[in-house]
Protein backbone atom coordinates (compact mmCIF):
# COMPACT_ATOMS: atom_id res chain seq x y z
CA UNK A 1 0.00 0.00 0.00
CA UNK A 2 2.52 2.54 1.18
CA UNK A 3 4.81 1.73 -1.71
CA UNK A 4 2.18 2.28 -4.35
CA UNK A 5 1.40 5.66 -2.84
CA UNK A 6 4.86 6.98 -3.66
CA UNK A 7 4.86 9.08 -6.78
CA UNK A 8 7.35 8.37 -9.54
CA UNK A 9 9.39 11.39 -8.49
CA UNK A 10 9.54 10.14 -4.90
CA UNK A 11 10.72 6.75 -6.08
CA UNK A 12 13.50 8.38 -8.07
CA UNK A 13 14.66 10.63 -5.25
CA UNK A 14 16.82 8.13 -3.34
CA UNK A 15 18.60 7.23 -6.55
CA UNK A 16 19.22 10.87 -7.39
CA UNK A 17 20.66 11.42 -3.94
CA UNK A 18 22.81 8.30 -4.23
CA UNK A 19 23.95 9.07 -7.76
CA UNK A 20 27.18 10.98 -6.97
CA UNK A 21 28.39 8.28 -4.60
CA UNK A 22 27.39 5.47 -6.91
CA UNK A 23 29.08 7.18 -9.86
CA UNK A 24 32.28 7.67 -7.87
CA UNK A 25 32.28 4.08 -6.64
CA UNK A 26 31.61 2.67 -10.09
CA UNK A 27 34.08 4.89 -11.93
CA UNK A 28 36.86 4.87 -9.38
CA UNK A 29 36.53 1.40 -7.95
CA UNK A 30 34.44 -1.11 -9.87
CA UNK A 31 35.64 -0.08 -13.34
CA UNK A 32 39.37 -0.14 -12.40
CA UNK A 33 38.93 -3.50 -10.68
CA UNK A 34 37.12 -4.73 -13.79
CA UNK A 35 39.98 -3.51 -15.97
CA UNK A 36 42.45 -5.26 -13.69
CA UNK A 37 40.45 -8.45 -13.97
CA UNK A 38 40.52 -8.19 -17.77
CA UNK A 39 44.27 -7.50 -17.72
CA UNK A 40 44.85 -10.69 -15.77
CA UNK A 41 43.81 -12.59 -18.90
CA UNK A 42 46.19 -10.67 -21.18
CA UNK A 43 49.46 -12.10 -22.41
CA UNK A 44 52.77 -10.73 -21.19
CA UNK A 45 55.21 -10.26 -24.07
CA UNK A 46 58.13 -8.35 -22.62
CA UNK A 47 58.59 -5.65 -19.95
CA UNK A 48 55.84 -3.14 -20.49
CA UNK A 49 54.28 -4.88 -23.44
CA UNK A 50 51.21 -7.09 -23.32
CA UNK A 51 48.77 -8.28 -25.94
CA UNK A 52 45.02 -8.60 -25.48
CA UNK A 53 44.71 -12.23 -26.55
CA UNK A 54 42.67 -13.61 -23.69
CA UNK A 55 44.17 -16.68 -22.05
CA UNK A 56 44.48 -18.37 -18.64
CA UNK A 57 48.30 -18.31 -18.68
CA UNK A 58 48.76 -15.96 -15.71
CA UNK A 59 46.22 -17.80 -13.61
CA UNK A 60 47.80 -21.11 -14.50
CA UNK A 61 51.17 -19.75 -13.49
CA UNK A 62 49.82 -18.49 -10.18
CA UNK A 63 48.12 -21.76 -9.29
CA UNK A 64 51.00 -23.99 -10.37
CA UNK A 65 54.02 -22.03 -9.10
CA UNK A 66 54.76 -22.58 -5.41
CA UNK A 67 56.84 -19.38 -5.43
CA UNK A 68 53.56 -17.44 -5.18
CA UNK A 69 52.04 -19.77 -2.62
CA UNK A 70 55.04 -19.21 -0.39
CA UNK A 71 54.41 -15.46 -0.44
CA UNK A 72 50.77 -15.99 0.29
CA UNK A 73 51.50 -18.26 3.22
CA UNK A 74 54.15 -15.93 4.65
CA UNK A 75 51.82 -12.94 4.30
CA UNK A 76 49.02 -14.78 6.09
CA UNK A 77 51.35 -15.91 8.85
CA UNK A 78 52.90 -12.49 9.49
CA UNK A 79 49.50 -10.77 9.31
CA UNK A 80 48.02 -13.24 11.77
CA UNK A 81 50.94 -12.81 14.19
CA UNK A 82 50.62 -9.03 13.87
CA UNK A 83 46.86 -9.08 14.47
CA UNK A 84 47.19 -11.35 17.51
CA UNK A 85 49.97 -9.28 19.03
CA UNK A 86 47.87 -6.16 18.43
CA UNK A 87 44.97 -7.79 20.27
CA UNK A 88 47.15 -8.76 23.22
CA UNK A 89 48.76 -5.32 23.38
CA UNK A 90 45.59 -3.42 22.57
CA UNK A 91 43.17 -4.94 25.06
CA UNK A 92 44.67 -3.57 28.29
CA UNK A 93 44.82 0.10 27.16
CA UNK A 94 41.32 -0.17 25.66
CA UNK A 95 40.06 -1.64 28.92
CA UNK A 96 41.77 1.10 30.88
CA UNK A 97 40.29 3.90 28.74
CA UNK A 98 36.82 2.38 28.88
CA UNK A 99 36.81 1.75 32.62
CA UNK A 100 38.72 4.75 33.94
CA UNK A 101 36.85 7.29 35.98
CA UNK A 102 39.24 9.95 34.67
CA UNK A 103 37.03 12.83 33.67
CA UNK A 104 38.74 13.76 30.40
CA UNK A 105 38.39 10.47 28.59
CA UNK A 106 38.40 12.25 25.24
CA UNK A 107 42.01 13.24 25.91
CA UNK A 108 43.04 9.59 26.15
CA UNK A 109 41.17 8.83 22.94
CA UNK A 110 42.84 11.81 21.29
CA UNK A 111 46.22 10.40 22.25
CA UNK A 112 45.31 7.32 20.22
CA UNK A 113 44.61 9.44 17.16
CA UNK A 114 47.71 11.65 17.47
CA UNK A 115 49.99 9.20 15.59
CA UNK A 116 47.74 9.60 12.55
CA UNK A 117 48.80 13.25 12.36
CA UNK A 118 52.30 12.17 11.36
CA UNK A 119 52.88 10.66 7.94
CA UNK A 120 52.75 6.90 7.98
CA UNK A 121 56.00 6.65 6.02
CA UNK A 122 57.85 8.90 8.45
CA UNK A 123 56.56 6.90 11.39
CA UNK A 124 57.80 3.75 9.71
CA UNK A 125 61.19 5.27 8.98
CA UNK A 126 61.57 6.26 12.62
CA UNK A 127 62.08 2.58 13.43
CA UNK A 128 65.26 2.61 11.36
CA UNK A 129 66.74 5.00 13.88
CA UNK A 130 65.57 2.93 16.78
CA UNK A 131 66.38 -0.60 15.64
CA UNK A 132 69.23 0.06 13.24
CA UNK A 133 72.91 -0.82 13.79
CA UNK A 134 73.55 2.75 14.91
CA UNK A 135 70.03 3.14 16.24
CA UNK A 136 69.05 4.19 19.73
CA UNK A 137 68.94 0.68 21.18
CA UNK A 138 72.20 -0.62 19.79
CA UNK A 139 74.04 2.64 20.44
CA UNK A 140 72.90 2.72 24.07
CA UNK A 141 73.70 -0.92 24.73
CA UNK A 142 77.15 -0.55 23.16
CA UNK A 143 77.72 2.71 24.99
CA UNK A 144 76.96 0.94 28.25
CA UNK A 145 79.34 -1.81 27.25
CA UNK A 146 76.67 -4.48 27.47
CA UNK A 147 77.30 -5.69 23.94
CA UNK A 148 80.30 -5.39 21.66
CA UNK A 149 78.56 -6.06 18.34
CA UNK A 150 75.27 -4.41 17.36
CA UNK A 151 72.32 -6.79 17.59
CA UNK A 152 70.74 -7.24 14.15
CA UNK A 153 67.18 -6.09 14.71
CA UNK A 154 66.36 -4.09 11.63
CA UNK A 155 65.50 -5.77 8.31
CA UNK A 156 64.10 -8.86 10.03
CA UNK A 157 60.65 -10.34 10.25
CA UNK A 158 60.48 -9.01 13.78
CA UNK A 159 61.04 -5.42 12.70
CA UNK A 160 58.36 -5.76 10.01
CA UNK A 161 55.86 -7.02 12.60
CA UNK A 162 56.95 -4.27 14.98
CA UNK A 163 56.31 -1.60 12.34
CA UNK A 164 52.91 -3.01 11.46
CA UNK A 165 51.86 -3.21 15.12
CA UNK A 166 52.93 0.43 15.43
CA UNK A 167 50.51 1.47 12.74
CA UNK A 168 47.66 -0.96 13.53
CA UNK A 169 47.49 -0.72 17.29
CA UNK A 170 45.27 2.41 17.40
CA UNK A 171 42.69 0.66 15.18
CA UNK A 172 42.70 -2.31 17.52
CA UNK A 173 42.43 -0.19 20.67
CA UNK A 174 39.59 1.89 19.22
CA UNK A 175 37.61 -1.17 18.17
CA UNK A 176 37.97 -2.88 21.53
CA UNK A 177 37.28 0.39 23.34
CA UNK A 178 34.00 0.90 21.52
CA UNK A 179 32.64 -2.49 22.48
CA UNK A 180 33.89 -2.22 26.07
CA UNK A 181 32.39 1.22 26.38
CA UNK A 182 29.02 -0.15 25.28
CA UNK A 183 28.88 -2.67 28.12
CA UNK A 184 26.36 -1.77 30.80
CA UNK A 185 28.29 -1.36 34.08
CA UNK A 186 25.29 -2.76 35.93
CA UNK A 187 26.03 -6.13 34.32
CA UNK A 188 29.39 -6.18 36.06
CA UNK A 189 27.80 -5.09 39.35
CA UNK A 190 25.16 -7.79 38.90
CA UNK A 191 27.81 -10.46 38.35
CA UNK A 192 29.73 -9.24 41.41
CA UNK A 193 26.61 -9.28 43.55
CA UNK A 194 25.94 -12.87 42.49
CA UNK A 195 29.30 -13.99 43.80
CA UNK A 196 31.95 -13.22 41.16
CA UNK A 197 35.32 -11.79 42.02
CA UNK A 198 36.48 -8.95 39.77
CA UNK A 199 38.41 -11.37 37.60
CA UNK A 200 35.51 -13.83 37.36
CA UNK A 201 33.15 -11.01 36.40
CA UNK A 202 35.61 -10.00 33.69
CA UNK A 203 35.68 -13.55 32.30
CA UNK A 204 31.90 -14.01 32.53
CA UNK A 205 30.69 -10.64 31.34
CA UNK A 206 33.22 -8.12 30.10
CA UNK A 207 35.34 -10.37 27.91
CA UNK A 208 32.50 -12.17 26.09
CA UNK A 209 30.66 -8.91 25.50
CA UNK A 210 33.77 -7.26 24.09
CA UNK A 211 34.45 -10.09 21.63
CA UNK A 212 32.73 -8.32 18.70
CA UNK A 213 35.12 -5.38 19.07
CA UNK A 214 38.07 -7.68 19.51
CA UNK A 215 37.01 -9.59 16.40
CA UNK A 216 36.58 -6.40 14.41
CA UNK A 217 40.03 -5.25 15.50
CA UNK A 218 41.56 -8.60 14.54
CA UNK A 219 39.95 -8.53 11.10
CA UNK A 220 40.93 -4.95 10.43
CA UNK A 221 44.52 -5.51 11.56
CA UNK A 222 44.81 -8.72 9.58
CA UNK A 223 43.43 -7.21 6.37
CA UNK A 224 45.52 -4.04 6.63
CA UNK A 225 48.66 -6.01 7.50
CA UNK A 226 48.12 -8.44 4.64
CA UNK A 227 47.72 -5.58 2.19
CA UNK A 228 50.72 -3.57 3.39
CA UNK A 229 53.87 -3.15 1.33
CA UNK A 230 55.49 0.04 2.63
CA UNK A 231 56.34 -1.44 6.03
CA UNK A 232 58.13 -4.58 4.73
CA UNK A 233 59.76 -2.41 2.06
CA UNK A 234 61.29 -0.07 4.64
CA UNK A 235 61.79 -2.32 7.65
CA UNK A 236 62.11 -5.79 6.08
CA UNK A 237 65.06 -7.59 4.57
CA UNK A 238 65.06 -9.18 1.14
CA UNK A 239 63.32 -12.32 2.40
CA UNK A 240 60.73 -10.43 4.40
CA UNK A 241 58.80 -9.21 1.38
CA UNK A 242 55.09 -9.77 1.60
CA UNK A 243 52.47 -10.32 -1.07
CA UNK A 244 52.08 -6.56 -1.48
CA UNK A 245 55.77 -6.24 -2.31
CA UNK A 246 55.44 -9.05 -4.80
CA UNK A 247 52.66 -7.17 -6.58
CA UNK A 248 54.66 -3.94 -6.45
CA UNK A 249 57.76 -5.60 -7.94
CA UNK A 250 55.80 -7.42 -10.62
CA UNK A 251 54.11 -4.27 -11.81
CA UNK A 252 56.71 -1.58 -11.19
CA UNK A 253 59.98 -3.46 -11.73
CA UNK A 254 59.20 -6.29 -14.11
CA UNK A 255 56.53 -4.15 -15.77
CA UNK A 256 54.51 -7.35 -16.02
CA UNK A 257 51.04 -5.90 -15.71
CA UNK A 258 49.08 -9.04 -16.56
CA UNK A 259 50.75 -11.06 -13.77
CA UNK A 260 50.61 -8.09 -11.38
CA UNK A 261 46.89 -7.68 -11.88
CA UNK A 262 46.38 -11.41 -11.43
CA UNK A 263 48.14 -11.27 -8.07
CA UNK A 264 46.16 -8.16 -7.08
CA UNK A 265 42.88 -9.89 -7.84
CA UNK A 266 44.02 -12.91 -5.81
CA UNK A 267 44.75 -10.73 -2.77
CA UNK A 268 41.49 -8.84 -3.17
CA UNK A 269 39.46 -12.04 -3.35
CA UNK A 270 41.23 -13.72 -0.44
CA UNK A 271 40.87 -10.74 1.89
CA UNK A 272 37.27 -10.41 0.73
CA UNK A 273 36.65 -14.01 1.75
CA UNK A 274 38.18 -13.40 5.18
CA UNK A 275 35.90 -10.38 5.64
CA UNK A 276 32.84 -12.32 4.53
CA UNK A 277 33.59 -15.16 6.93
CA UNK A 278 34.00 -12.60 9.69
CA UNK A 279 30.79 -10.75 8.90
CA UNK A 280 28.88 -14.03 8.90
CA UNK A 281 29.81 -14.54 12.55
CA UNK A 282 30.32 -11.07 13.94
CA UNK A 283 28.63 -8.58 11.65
CA UNK A 284 30.64 -5.87 9.94
CA UNK A 285 28.73 -3.13 11.71
CA UNK A 286 31.12 -3.23 14.65
CA UNK A 287 33.94 -2.10 12.37
CA UNK A 288 32.07 0.87 11.01
CA UNK A 289 31.05 1.67 14.57
CA UNK A 290 34.71 1.56 15.56
CA UNK A 291 35.82 3.82 12.75
CA UNK A 292 33.07 6.37 13.16
CA UNK A 293 34.17 7.22 16.67
Amino acid sequence: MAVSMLSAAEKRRPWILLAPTLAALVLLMLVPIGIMLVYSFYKFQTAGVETPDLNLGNWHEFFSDSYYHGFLWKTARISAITALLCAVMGYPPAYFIAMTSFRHKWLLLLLLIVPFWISFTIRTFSWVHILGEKGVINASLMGLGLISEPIPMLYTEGSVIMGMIHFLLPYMVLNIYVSLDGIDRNLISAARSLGCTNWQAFKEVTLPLSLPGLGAGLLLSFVLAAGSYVTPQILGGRKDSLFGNLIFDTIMKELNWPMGTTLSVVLLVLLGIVSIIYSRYMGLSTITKGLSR
Partner: protein
Amino acid sequence: MTNAVELRNITLAYGSFVAVENVSLSIEKGTFLTLLGPSGCGKTTILRSIAGLVNPTAGDIEIAGRRVNDVPIHKRNIGLVFQNYALFPHKTIFDNIGFGLKYRNVPKPAIAAKVKRALEIVRLPGVEKKLPSELSGGQQQRIALARAIVIEPDVLLLDEPLSALDANLRDEMRVELKQIQRQTGITTIFVTHDQGEALAMSDRVVVMNRGRIEQMGSPFDVYEHPQTEFVAGFLGNANFLQATVVAMQGEAVQVRLAGGANLLVGGGHARPVKPGDAVKVVVRAEKVVVTPECTVPIMARIVDVDYLGALARYEVELAGGQRLRALSSLHEKARSLGETVGVGIDPEHCRIL
Protein backbone atom coordinates in the same frame (compact mmCIF):
# COMPACT_ATOMS: atom_id res chain seq x y z
CA MET B 1 16.89 -11.24 67.32
CA THR B 2 19.45 -9.64 65.03
CA ASN B 3 18.18 -7.31 62.38
CA ALA B 4 18.58 -8.24 58.74
CA VAL B 5 20.31 -4.96 57.99
CA GLU B 6 21.67 -2.40 60.39
CA LEU B 7 23.09 0.95 59.33
CA ARG B 8 24.90 2.97 61.97
CA ASN B 9 25.69 6.61 61.31
CA ILE B 10 26.42 6.11 57.65
CA THR B 11 27.97 9.09 55.91
CA LEU B 12 29.04 9.02 52.31
CA ALA B 13 30.80 11.93 50.69
CA TYR B 14 32.21 12.38 47.22
CA GLY B 15 34.80 15.07 47.74
CA SER B 16 32.88 18.00 49.17
CA PHE B 17 29.50 16.62 48.07
CA VAL B 18 27.79 14.74 50.86
CA ALA B 19 25.41 12.20 49.34
CA VAL B 20 24.36 10.60 52.59
CA GLU B 21 24.71 12.23 55.99
CA ASN B 22 24.66 10.35 59.26
CA VAL B 23 21.94 7.86 58.42
CA SER B 24 21.03 5.14 60.89
CA LEU B 25 18.51 2.47 60.08
CA SER B 26 17.51 -0.91 61.46
CA ILE B 27 15.64 -3.26 59.22
CA GLU B 28 13.93 -6.24 60.77
CA LYS B 29 14.05 -9.60 59.12
CA GLY B 30 11.29 -10.13 56.55
CA THR B 31 10.45 -6.44 56.26
CA PHE B 32 9.65 -4.69 53.02
CA LEU B 33 11.27 -1.30 53.49
CA THR B 34 11.15 1.51 50.97
CA LEU B 35 13.63 4.33 50.64
CA LEU B 36 11.56 7.12 49.17
CA GLY B 37 12.72 10.50 48.01
CA PRO B 38 13.43 12.74 45.06
CA SER B 39 16.41 12.01 42.83
CA GLY B 40 19.68 12.93 44.47
CA CYS B 41 18.34 12.42 47.99
CA GLY B 42 20.84 9.65 48.69
CA LYS B 43 18.47 6.69 48.57
CA THR B 44 20.33 4.89 45.80
CA THR B 45 23.65 5.64 47.44
CA ILE B 46 22.45 3.90 50.60
CA LEU B 47 21.34 0.91 48.55
CA ARG B 48 24.69 0.80 46.76
CA SER B 49 26.58 0.99 50.02
CA ILE B 50 24.61 -1.95 51.44
CA ALA B 51 25.38 -3.82 48.22
CA GLY B 52 29.06 -2.96 48.53
CA LEU B 53 29.23 -1.03 45.27
CA VAL B 54 30.33 2.06 47.18
CA ASN B 55 32.02 2.37 50.52
CA PRO B 56 30.70 4.68 53.22
CA THR B 57 33.04 7.43 54.35
CA ALA B 58 32.00 6.77 57.94
CA GLY B 59 29.67 4.47 59.81
CA ASP B 60 29.02 0.75 59.99
CA ILE B 61 26.91 -1.56 57.88
CA GLU B 62 25.78 -4.90 59.24
CA ILE B 63 24.03 -7.59 57.27
CA ALA B 64 22.58 -10.50 59.24
CA GLY B 65 24.58 -9.50 62.28
CA ARG B 66 27.91 -9.35 60.44
CA ARG B 67 29.79 -6.10 59.90
CA VAL B 68 30.33 -5.95 56.14
CA ASN B 69 32.19 -2.65 55.65
CA ASP B 70 35.31 -4.51 54.56
CA VAL B 71 33.56 -7.47 52.98
CA PRO B 72 33.75 -7.29 49.17
CA ILE B 73 30.49 -7.35 47.26
CA HIS B 74 30.78 -10.96 46.11
CA LYS B 75 31.04 -12.20 49.68
CA ARG B 76 27.97 -10.32 50.92
CA ASN B 77 24.95 -12.49 50.38
CA ILE B 78 22.73 -9.97 48.63
CA GLY B 79 20.29 -9.99 45.74
CA LEU B 80 20.43 -6.94 43.53
CA VAL B 81 17.82 -5.90 40.96
CA PHE B 82 18.44 -2.95 38.67
CA GLN B 83 16.15 -0.53 36.94
CA ASN B 84 17.42 -1.69 33.54
CA TYR B 85 17.23 -5.40 34.56
CA ALA B 86 20.95 -5.96 33.81
CA LEU B 87 20.43 -9.50 32.55
CA PHE B 88 23.49 -11.01 30.89
CA PRO B 89 22.57 -10.63 27.21
CA HIS B 90 24.87 -13.44 26.04
CA LYS B 91 23.54 -16.02 28.48
CA THR B 92 20.30 -17.98 28.41
CA ILE B 93 17.64 -17.39 31.04
CA PHE B 94 18.75 -20.61 32.71
CA ASP B 95 22.35 -19.44 32.90
CA ASN B 96 21.28 -16.02 34.08
CA ILE B 97 19.26 -17.38 36.98
CA GLY B 98 21.73 -20.15 37.73
CA PHE B 99 24.67 -17.72 37.69
CA GLY B 100 24.73 -17.00 41.41
CA LEU B 101 24.22 -20.66 42.27
CA LYS B 102 27.17 -21.67 40.12
CA TYR B 103 29.42 -19.37 42.14
CA ARG B 104 28.02 -20.82 45.35
CA ASN B 105 29.15 -24.27 44.20
CA VAL B 106 25.64 -25.67 44.11
CA PRO B 107 25.67 -29.03 42.29
CA LYS B 108 24.18 -29.02 38.79
CA PRO B 109 20.99 -31.02 39.43
CA ALA B 110 20.19 -28.75 42.38
CA ILE B 111 20.76 -25.68 40.19
CA ALA B 112 18.27 -26.98 37.64
CA ALA B 113 15.68 -27.59 40.35
CA LYS B 114 16.19 -24.19 41.95
CA VAL B 115 16.04 -22.35 38.63
CA LYS B 116 12.81 -24.15 37.79
CA ARG B 117 11.35 -23.24 41.17
CA ALA B 118 12.44 -19.59 40.81
CA LEU B 119 10.78 -19.37 37.39
CA GLU B 120 7.59 -20.73 38.93
CA ILE B 121 7.72 -18.09 41.66
CA VAL B 122 7.98 -15.29 39.07
CA ARG B 123 5.34 -17.08 36.95
CA LEU B 124 7.47 -17.57 33.85
CA PRO B 125 7.96 -21.33 33.69
CA GLY B 126 9.58 -22.87 30.64
CA VAL B 127 11.69 -19.98 29.34
CA GLU B 128 15.02 -21.52 30.42
CA LYS B 129 16.44 -21.80 26.92
CA LYS B 130 15.55 -18.31 25.74
CA LEU B 131 17.86 -15.32 25.60
CA PRO B 132 16.93 -12.17 27.54
CA SER B 133 16.37 -10.26 24.29
CA GLU B 134 13.55 -12.65 23.40
CA LEU B 135 11.53 -11.55 26.43
CA SER B 136 9.51 -8.39 27.02
CA GLY B 137 10.56 -5.73 29.52
CA GLY B 138 8.22 -6.99 32.21
CA GLN B 139 9.38 -10.57 31.69
CA GLN B 140 13.02 -9.51 31.83
CA GLN B 141 12.37 -7.80 35.14
CA ARG B 142 10.83 -11.01 36.49
CA ILE B 143 13.93 -12.92 35.41
CA ALA B 144 16.12 -10.32 37.12
CA LEU B 145 14.04 -10.84 40.26
CA ALA B 146 14.30 -14.63 39.95
CA ARG B 147 18.08 -14.33 39.54
CA ALA B 148 18.28 -12.27 42.73
CA ILE B 149 16.02 -14.42 44.94
CA VAL B 150 17.26 -17.82 43.80
CA ILE B 151 20.45 -17.39 45.83
CA GLU B 152 18.32 -16.88 48.96
CA PRO B 153 19.99 -13.58 49.83
CA ASP B 154 20.06 -12.08 53.31
CA VAL B 155 18.60 -8.96 51.79
CA LEU B 156 17.06 -8.16 48.43
CA LEU B 157 17.98 -4.73 47.07
CA LEU B 158 15.69 -3.26 44.43
CA ASP B 159 16.84 -0.11 42.66
CA GLU B 160 13.76 1.46 41.08
CA PRO B 161 12.90 -1.87 39.47
CA LEU B 162 9.55 -0.77 38.11
CA SER B 163 10.34 2.60 36.60
CA ALA B 164 11.38 1.25 33.21
CA LEU B 165 8.02 -0.48 32.74
CA ASP B 166 4.95 1.15 31.26
CA ALA B 167 2.13 2.21 33.56
CA ASN B 168 -0.16 -0.84 33.37
CA LEU B 169 2.65 -3.33 33.65
CA ARG B 170 4.08 -1.35 36.54
CA ASP B 171 0.90 -1.73 38.59
CA GLU B 172 0.76 -5.43 37.82
CA MET B 173 4.40 -5.98 38.74
CA ARG B 174 3.91 -3.94 41.90
CA VAL B 175 1.29 -6.34 43.16
CA GLU B 176 3.28 -9.34 42.10
CA LEU B 177 6.54 -8.11 43.58
CA LYS B 178 4.82 -7.62 46.91
CA GLN B 179 3.29 -11.10 46.72
CA ILE B 180 6.63 -12.68 45.92
CA GLN B 181 8.25 -10.84 48.79
CA ARG B 182 5.56 -11.98 51.20
CA GLN B 183 5.77 -15.54 49.89
CA THR B 184 9.56 -15.78 50.16
CA GLY B 185 9.88 -13.66 53.28
CA ILE B 186 13.12 -12.10 52.02
CA THR B 187 14.02 -8.82 53.70
CA THR B 188 13.67 -6.26 50.95
CA ILE B 189 14.93 -2.74 50.48
CA PHE B 190 13.18 -0.96 47.69
CA VAL B 191 14.35 2.36 46.29
CA THR B 192 11.84 4.56 44.51
CA HIS B 193 10.82 8.14 43.92
CA ASP B 194 7.23 7.03 43.34
CA GLN B 195 5.12 7.63 46.45
CA GLY B 196 2.36 5.39 45.14
CA GLU B 197 4.72 2.42 44.97
CA ALA B 198 6.12 3.24 48.38
CA LEU B 199 2.73 3.47 50.08
CA ALA B 200 1.25 0.43 48.38
CA MET B 201 4.11 -2.00 48.84
CA SER B 202 5.97 -1.20 52.01
CA ASP B 203 5.82 -2.33 55.58
CA ARG B 204 7.97 0.66 56.40
CA VAL B 205 8.71 3.80 54.46
CA VAL B 206 11.83 5.90 54.94
CA VAL B 207 11.40 9.34 53.43
CA MET B 208 14.72 10.89 52.50
CA ASN B 209 15.77 14.35 51.45
CA ARG B 210 19.23 15.78 50.85
CA GLY B 211 21.07 12.78 52.21
CA ARG B 212 19.11 12.67 55.47
CA ILE B 213 16.16 10.69 56.75
CA GLU B 214 13.18 13.00 57.11
CA GLN B 215 10.83 10.46 58.60
CA MET B 216 10.29 6.75 58.86
CA GLY B 217 7.27 4.74 59.75
CA SER B 218 4.43 2.74 58.32
CA PRO B 219 2.91 4.04 55.08
CA PHE B 220 -0.11 5.20 57.07
CA ASP B 221 2.11 7.00 59.55
CA VAL B 222 4.16 8.97 57.06
CA TYR B 223 1.13 9.84 55.03
CA GLU B 224 -1.23 10.81 57.84
CA HIS B 225 1.26 12.15 60.34
CA PRO B 226 4.01 13.90 58.43
CA GLN B 227 6.72 15.23 60.72
CA THR B 228 8.14 17.79 58.34
CA GLU B 229 6.94 20.06 55.61
CA PHE B 230 9.05 18.09 53.14
CA VAL B 231 7.31 14.81 53.96
CA ALA B 232 3.88 16.42 53.83
CA GLY B 233 4.69 18.03 50.49
CA PHE B 234 6.35 14.98 48.94
CA LEU B 235 3.61 12.50 49.77
CA GLY B 236 0.23 13.24 48.30
CA ASN B 237 -1.25 16.57 47.48
CA ALA B 238 -0.88 18.81 50.52
CA ASN B 239 -2.13 22.28 51.35
CA PHE B 240 -0.16 24.43 53.74
CA LEU B 241 -2.11 27.11 55.59
CA GLN B 242 -0.59 29.95 57.60
CA ALA B 243 -2.38 30.23 60.95
CA THR B 244 -2.03 31.47 64.51
CA VAL B 245 -2.72 29.29 67.52
CA VAL B 246 -5.71 30.63 69.44
CA ALA B 247 -6.32 28.09 72.15
CA MET B 248 -5.58 24.56 73.20
CA GLN B 249 -8.64 22.33 73.54
CA GLY B 250 -7.33 19.14 75.09
CA GLU B 251 -5.64 17.21 72.29
CA ALA B 252 -6.97 19.59 69.65
CA VAL B 253 -5.72 23.04 68.82
CA GLN B 254 -7.86 26.00 67.80
CA VAL B 255 -6.15 28.13 65.16
CA ARG B 256 -7.11 31.26 63.26
CA LEU B 257 -6.32 31.30 59.57
CA ALA B 258 -4.78 34.36 57.97
CA GLY B 259 -8.18 35.31 56.60
CA GLY B 260 -9.85 35.28 60.01
CA ALA B 261 -11.68 31.95 59.86
CA ASN B 262 -11.25 29.54 62.75
CA LEU B 263 -10.15 25.96 62.29
CA LEU B 264 -9.93 23.12 64.74
CA VAL B 265 -6.82 20.99 64.29
CA GLY B 266 -7.18 17.50 65.68
CA GLY B 267 -4.48 15.62 63.81
CA GLY B 268 -1.75 16.45 66.30
CA HIS B 269 1.36 18.54 65.94
CA ALA B 270 4.95 17.81 65.04
CA ARG B 271 6.28 20.10 67.82
CA PRO B 272 4.80 21.64 70.96
CA VAL B 273 2.74 24.81 70.41
CA LYS B 274 1.19 27.45 72.65
CA PRO B 275 -1.41 30.15 71.98
CA GLY B 276 -0.05 33.00 69.91
CA ASP B 277 2.36 30.83 67.91
CA ALA B 278 2.42 31.25 64.14
CA VAL B 279 2.09 27.76 62.67
CA LYS B 280 1.65 25.97 59.43
CA VAL B 281 -1.35 23.70 59.13
CA VAL B 282 -1.18 20.91 56.60
CA VAL B 283 -4.28 19.37 55.11
CA ARG B 284 -4.45 17.00 52.16
CA ALA B 285 -6.39 18.02 49.09
CA GLU B 286 -8.61 14.91 49.19
CA LYS B 287 -9.62 15.74 52.76
CA VAL B 288 -10.90 19.19 51.85
CA VAL B 289 -14.64 18.99 51.27
CA VAL B 290 -16.23 21.50 48.96
CA THR B 291 -19.95 21.89 49.72
CA PRO B 292 -22.66 24.21 48.46
CA GLU B 293 -24.04 24.63 52.00
CA CYS B 294 -22.94 27.73 53.74
CA THR B 295 -23.27 26.26 57.23
CA VAL B 296 -19.57 25.43 57.50
CA PRO B 297 -17.39 28.10 59.03
CA ILE B 298 -14.98 28.63 56.12
CA MET B 299 -16.23 30.30 52.97
CA ALA B 300 -14.32 30.30 49.71
CA ARG B 301 -14.60 31.11 46.05
CA ILE B 302 -13.70 28.63 43.32
CA VAL B 303 -10.89 30.03 41.16
CA ASP B 304 -10.01 26.96 39.15
CA VAL B 305 -11.69 23.69 38.23
CA ASP B 306 -10.04 20.65 36.68
CA TYR B 307 -12.62 18.11 35.62
CA LEU B 308 -11.02 14.65 35.76
CA GLY B 309 -14.05 12.45 35.20
CA ALA B 310 -14.36 10.53 38.45
CA LEU B 311 -12.78 13.40 40.33
CA ALA B 312 -12.68 17.16 40.22
CA ARG B 313 -9.74 19.22 41.35
CA TYR B 314 -10.70 22.63 42.68
CA GLU B 315 -8.58 25.55 43.60
CA VAL B 316 -10.45 27.72 46.07
CA GLU B 317 -9.54 31.08 47.52
CA LEU B 318 -10.25 31.79 51.16
CA ALA B 319 -11.20 35.18 52.51
CA GLY B 320 -7.61 36.14 53.36
CA GLY B 321 -6.38 35.32 49.86
CA GLN B 322 -4.91 31.92 50.80
CA ARG B 323 -5.53 29.25 48.25
CA LEU B 324 -6.42 25.64 48.86
CA ARG B 325 -6.54 22.68 46.57
CA ALA B 326 -9.39 20.24 46.99
CA LEU B 327 -9.81 16.86 45.35
CA SER B 328 -13.40 15.66 45.42
CA SER B 329 -14.97 12.57 44.02
CA LEU B 330 -17.87 13.59 41.84
CA HIS B 331 -21.27 12.24 42.73
CA GLU B 332 -23.02 15.09 41.01
CA LYS B 333 -22.13 17.89 38.65
CA ALA B 334 -18.83 19.64 39.25
CA ARG B 335 -18.98 23.10 40.82
CA SER B 336 -18.32 25.94 38.45
CA LEU B 337 -15.78 28.71 38.39
CA GLY B 338 -16.51 31.73 40.57
CA GLU B 339 -19.07 29.91 42.71
CA THR B 340 -18.99 30.62 46.42
CA VAL B 341 -18.81 27.44 48.43
CA GLY B 342 -18.23 26.23 51.92
CA VAL B 343 -15.00 24.44 52.71
CA GLY B 344 -15.22 21.68 55.24
CA ILE B 345 -12.09 20.31 56.89
CA ASP B 346 -12.39 17.52 59.42
CA PRO B 347 -10.21 18.37 62.47
CA GLU B 348 -8.80 14.82 62.34
CA HIS B 349 -7.18 15.51 59.00
CA CYS B 350 -5.39 18.72 59.87
CA ARG B 351 -1.98 18.68 61.37
CA ILE B 352 0.33 21.36 62.69
CA LEU B 353 3.92 21.25 61.49
